[in-house]
């Protein structure tokens, strides 16, 4: 009976064993990727489990300096630029959109916008991307950064997080500003936006992490590897025949490291934000 409140020792040991073992299994791929990036392909073949590299040699990062005829630095800059710009654009557009839909849910046409958005996020993403190719072609945006950034701007989680936040603003706060004679623009910039700073930071962070990982729309909208980001470059390197194993692992490290570091710095915000955005959906 007593073990309901104070768990017994054995149970605790088992719980720790399970938690530690599972966590290490989840982390092992990262360790293996990191170690393999520093080991020649032949060495990995003969001893795949070696827990650390023979020598700490950064040579591989200059060897993969050019992939598919494009400089590695171009992919890295593309990743940073496309992710940052689509995040900024997405946050602004989604915040304003969600705000309008929450404040005037019954305005003519607004329900249609809502349903259009909900249907879009239900549609199988990879199958949506294909007709998007046709749309990009018609708009003359194929192969352009603008096309990629515009497409990546919208996402379900971002919208739900903002919607949920705006819904929670008490009506009295807005009413008071209206009575004071504030215009809607003033209400937005002086009342709502200052309150929305924390949620905006959360959404920006999550959008950055999600958009950094994007690959399929970028591959489809691109006309050449010049607009590829790191994940797309990694995928095309991985698909090559007789692939350079060490190089693939090195590129995987470069693709993972920035977002893993960002996540670890802001883990609380990211995990809470993602849970909140999903619970709303």
């Amino acid at each position, binding site marked *: 009976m007593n073990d309901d409140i104070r768990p017994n020792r054995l149970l605790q040991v088992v719980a720790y064993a399970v938690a530690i073992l599972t966590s290490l299994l989840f982390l092992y791929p990262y360790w*293996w990727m990191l170690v393999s990036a520093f080991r020649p392909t032949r060495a990995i073949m003969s001893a795949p489990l070696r827990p650390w590299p023979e020598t700490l040699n950064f040579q591989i990062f200059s060897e993969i300096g050019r992939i598919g005829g494009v400089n590695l630095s171009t992919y890295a800059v593309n990743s940073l630029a496309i992710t940052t710009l689509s995040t900024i654009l997405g946050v602004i557009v989604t915040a304003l959109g969600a705000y309008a839909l929450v404040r005037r849910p019954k305005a003519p046409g*607004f329900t249609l916008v809502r349903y*259009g958005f909900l249907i*879009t996020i239900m549609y199988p993403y990879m199958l949506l991307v294909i007709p998007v190719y046709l749309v990009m072609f018609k708009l003359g945006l194929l192969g352009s950064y603008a096309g990629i950034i515009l497409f990546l701007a*919208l996402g379900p989680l971002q919208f739900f997080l903002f919607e949920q936040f705006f819904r929670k603003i008490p009506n009295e706060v807005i009413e008071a500003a209206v009575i004071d004679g504030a215009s809607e623009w003033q209400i937005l910039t002086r009342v709502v936006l200052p309150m929305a700073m924390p949620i905006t930071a959360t959404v920006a962070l999550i959008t950055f992490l999600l958009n950094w990982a994007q690959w399929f729309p970028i591959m489809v909208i691109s006309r050449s590897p010049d607009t590829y980001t790191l994940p797309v470059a990694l995928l095309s390197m991985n698909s090559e025949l007789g692939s350079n194993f060490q190089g693939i692992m090195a590129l995987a490290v470069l693709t993972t490291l920035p977002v893993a570091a960002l996540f670890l710095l802001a883990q609380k915000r990211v995990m809470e934000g993602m849970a909140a955005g999903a619970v709303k959906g």
Partner: protein
Amino acid sequence: MMDALGSLSRDRIFYLFVAPFAALTILFGVWPIVLSIQVSFTASATALRPNPTYVGFANYIAVLADPIFLASLSRTLLYTVLSVFANLAFALGFAILLDSTLLKRGNLFFRLAIFLPVVTPDVAGYVVWRWLFDRSFGAINAALKMLGLPAFGGLSSVDTAMLSILIAELWHHAGFYMIIFLANLSIRDRALEEAAHIDGATTWQRWWYVILPQLRPALVINTVYALIQFLKTFTVVVVMTKGGPNDQTNFVSYYAYQLFDQARYGEATAMATILFAIVIGLSLTAYRIGDREPGK
């Protein structure tokens, strides 16, 4: 009069606020979906021309009579059921473990370890898993050999390919479902458990009758999310198996993509529409079942 004008201009600015959002939704959401459905009723060879030939439901009939599609659809459904179950069971189990009083230290570390793969770019994660499963490079078979266990077929064997990608996808997604369970666990009513404890309920009874019913919202959300997620399984196939071996992992979205690549636009978009209908139907059903109050 002034009032009416005032409220009109007050409304007008909201149209300005919503305009960019509406424009992006229409341009890159509604329009492509409509286009896709339209193409599904045309002959592939003429699909992209200004005046395509409409063929009615011919593409749908062709798709539904295609044995590869039917096999692909049943495999997709099987994979979805297995994945939803495996992911939610793992996520719920681990959330309960983390929420219990058993783990006093290291809670954050465990949480981060399981959640890190969620924010890891999926391509990078699956590339690493692809090679982990590899027969000659892979750490998995090397470890099994060291432990004296039989080799694991991984991605190259028809028997284990689906299991292998299920494992890789669980690694990538389970942390997300876990934090939703954890969020739900943290807002539950603990007074109920104390009451049950005082009434002499066993640990098991407390879980089954007191805690689990309170996790209903998280269970519903996770089921709907996981259904949508795994019905659409795509990236892992592109990175790890390309649909093989012997079509074992050739799920609907990948098959449709292949047809699109072969310029069979009509059939590809018909498949997309069918998958879309299944996604909507299943999610709504899961939502309805979950929303119903117990006993009603």
